[in-house]
């Protein structure tokens, strides 16, 4: 009795210990090692936001109706696009040591355009009347007075003109002016690089186009459906399987081809079936001929070379011969 109780106690204790080990996960079944799905960056647009994007506005400007022309005038000669290009090229670079445009004699004429703000005008006395003492302007004025050479910009010139009540700029000042790389919002165009575009790849040839966000087991880039379709179509045009051979519809030729970056075969196709009879041999030969004859495979993008450098193929004539 006592022995039985002891055995039972020890046994139950062992069972409980086993259960505890299971619960702790030590011997728990390993979870399925599913490869993590690669993330794809997307923008989430809610229905509300989408509606707002698409909604009209009551206070939006009315679309202007094109005026009905009663009489069509003679067509005016349009400047050719080639001429426009020439005009554009005549724009002088900001870095070129060119003098600023000389002030026009019309500086005294009243203007209503926005440019009038920076042009010396007859309104200058009014502006001066409204002018409030500005310590920065005063400091600038002092600087300009100290350095009369640094006045290449018409804006500064105008300011000086405004403050000095001058109506004519001094041509000598312009000649002595050295070009300084000062930022001028009105001459951004002049800052642009007018050199010819350098048409080179900005990165390496094997840029990774997949949107992998760093998964541990992310797959290599794969062929797109359109690339596969184009490849399939091209190989199909070259594939001339022997029709009518005995059981030809049941002979499937499996092979792997390896391609070089120039999209031609790196090696003869590696056929994965054995020629057990004349019909199979003829089918293999026809498939190999198709692959050799169809190269190069220009439909593949060089950036995805990893995806097409080795392609397993299955030539299956079942559908063709009516299975």
């Amino acid at each position, binding site marked *: 009795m006592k022995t039985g109780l002891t055995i039972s106690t020890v046994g139950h204790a062992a069972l409980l210990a086993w259960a505890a080990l299971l619960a702790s996960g030590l011997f728990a079944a390993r979870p399925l090692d599913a490869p993590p799905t690669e993330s794809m960056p997307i923008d989430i647009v809610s229905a509300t936001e989408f509606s707002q994007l698409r909604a009209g506005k009551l206070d939006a400007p009315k679309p202007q109706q094109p005026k009905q022309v009663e009489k069509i005038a003679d067509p005016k000669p349009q400047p050719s696009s080639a001429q426009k290009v020439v005009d554009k090229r005549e724009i002088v670079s900001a870095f070129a040591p060119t003098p600023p445009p000389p002030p026009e004699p019309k500086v005294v004429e009243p203007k209503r355009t926005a440019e009038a703000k920076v042009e010396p005008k007859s309104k200058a006395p009014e502006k001066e009347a409204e002018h409030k003492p500005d310590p920065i302007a005063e400091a600038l004025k002092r600087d300009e007075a100290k350095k009369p050479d640094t006045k290449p910009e018409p804006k500064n010139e105008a300011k000086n003109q405004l403050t000095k009540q001058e109506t004519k700029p001094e041509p000598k000042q312009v000649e002595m002016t050295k070009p300084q790389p000062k930022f001028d919002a009105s001459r951004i165009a002049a800052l642009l690089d007018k050199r010819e575009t350098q048409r080179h790849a900005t990165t390496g040839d094997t840029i990774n186009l997949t949107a992998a966000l760093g998964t541990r087991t992310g797959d290599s880039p794969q062929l797109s459906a359109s690339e596969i379709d184009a490849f399939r179509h091209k190989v199909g045009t070259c594939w001339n399987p022997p029709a009518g051979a*005995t059981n030809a519809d049941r002979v499937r030729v499996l092979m792997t081809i390896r391609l070089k970056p120039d999209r031609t075969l790196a090696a003869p196709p590696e056929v994965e079936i054995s020629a057990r009879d004349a019909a199979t041999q003829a089918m293999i030969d026809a498939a190999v001929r198709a692959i050799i004859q169809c190269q190069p495979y220009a439909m593949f993008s060089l950036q995805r070379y990893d995806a097409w450098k080795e392609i397993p193929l299955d030539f299956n004539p079942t559908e063709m011969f009516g299975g």
Partner: protein
Amino acid sequence: MNDHNTLPLSMLSRRRLLAGAAGLSAAGVVLAGLGGGPRKSAAAPRVTITEGNVQPIPIALPDFVGGQPADNELARSVTQVITADLRRCGLFAPIDPAAFIDKITNTDTVPNYPNWRAINAQALVVGRLRRQGDGRLQTEFRLWDVVAGQYLAGQQFVTTADSWRRIAHIIADLIYERLTGDTGYFDTRIAFVDETGPPERRVKRLAIMDQDGAGARYLTHGQDLVLTPRFSPSSQELVYMSYGQGDPKVYLLKVETLDREIVGNFPGMSFSPRFSPDNRRVVMSLQQGGNSNIFVMDLQSKATTRLTDTAAIDTAPCYSPNGDRICFESDRGGSQQIYVMAASGGPAERITFGEGSYSTPVWSPRGDFIAFTRIGQGQFAIGVIKPDKSGERIITEGYHNEGPTWAPNGRVLMFFRDPGGNGGPSLFSVDIAGRNEQRVPTPSFASDPAWSPLLSSS
């Protein structure tokens, strides 16, 4: 008697379970240590090509090189026969020799592949023919895959000079087989009924020729009416029906010696003979009153066995390639239809159910189809049907098409077509898909063709 390996469930005690649990736990530790290896990366998906572009294979056949200048003419003729064979079968497109860049002068060197690829050739055949000291011809050829740049086949033949056409046909067969995977049919003969004279006094003679129409010769003189010649599997004999003074009888004719013998001497008419695949028996129809039944006669023992016994017209029997079944036509169901029965006779199964009447069934050498003539709505059509009643389709249709016979590879049919009027019948060949219908050249009008087995294999 408790065996550890065959422990009954009832003997499992709690103690044993506990021991087992401990053992399992230990095994679990081991398994946990073994598991969790690196995940094998998935292979790239296989691209399946299902649609091809079936078209004749462009093949270059430059003239064979003659061993001596005097052999050049014969070498050119051999090349022309091979070229004609390959072109007529519809699976090859021989390239015009004027387009050739290279001139073949030596057949022992590897060809300059780029020059043959430049003219879009996929295959190239080069060969040499020379006359030996004993007067026999030595002919050899090599077949190259121009696209893959590899040697495919080659062979050498020595034969008498007058057999040069057969050598050409054999070479064409080998090229055909290597490039299509199917056996060829160029080294074969056609037996047919040659018809001359006006329709009311038509002279019908038994004739034989090569499958390309060359070498026609007559086997009978034309006094008797001859019908339905059929080759033996050895191609050395013909059985046919001849109608002279008495009843129509079945005769057996040796092709080379022209020896003739009657096959059984039965009362009444005997007709529609055909050899069994083992060349030992002839199956035919015997007239019995207003009906006819099918009998088989052993050629050695002359013993005759009845296969059908119906009050109907059972005729045109034909063995399956393995000889275990016979197809025939019968009007036992009201109209002429095709039936299949065991070679030993017994119950027959009807396999055609279409409109019109079906006749002249011929089992394909492949065994996959039975060709027939269907008569309906004033049209005679040649068609095929599978022995399991499926896949019936019409190959060609017209005013009067009849008498299909199979090429030994089972992919081409020959038949005769009679346009009616003052004209006469001609032989035509067509592939099993209904394409590449071509008239077969014959000396005059021709009907009832019978295609021999491959001569080189028989």
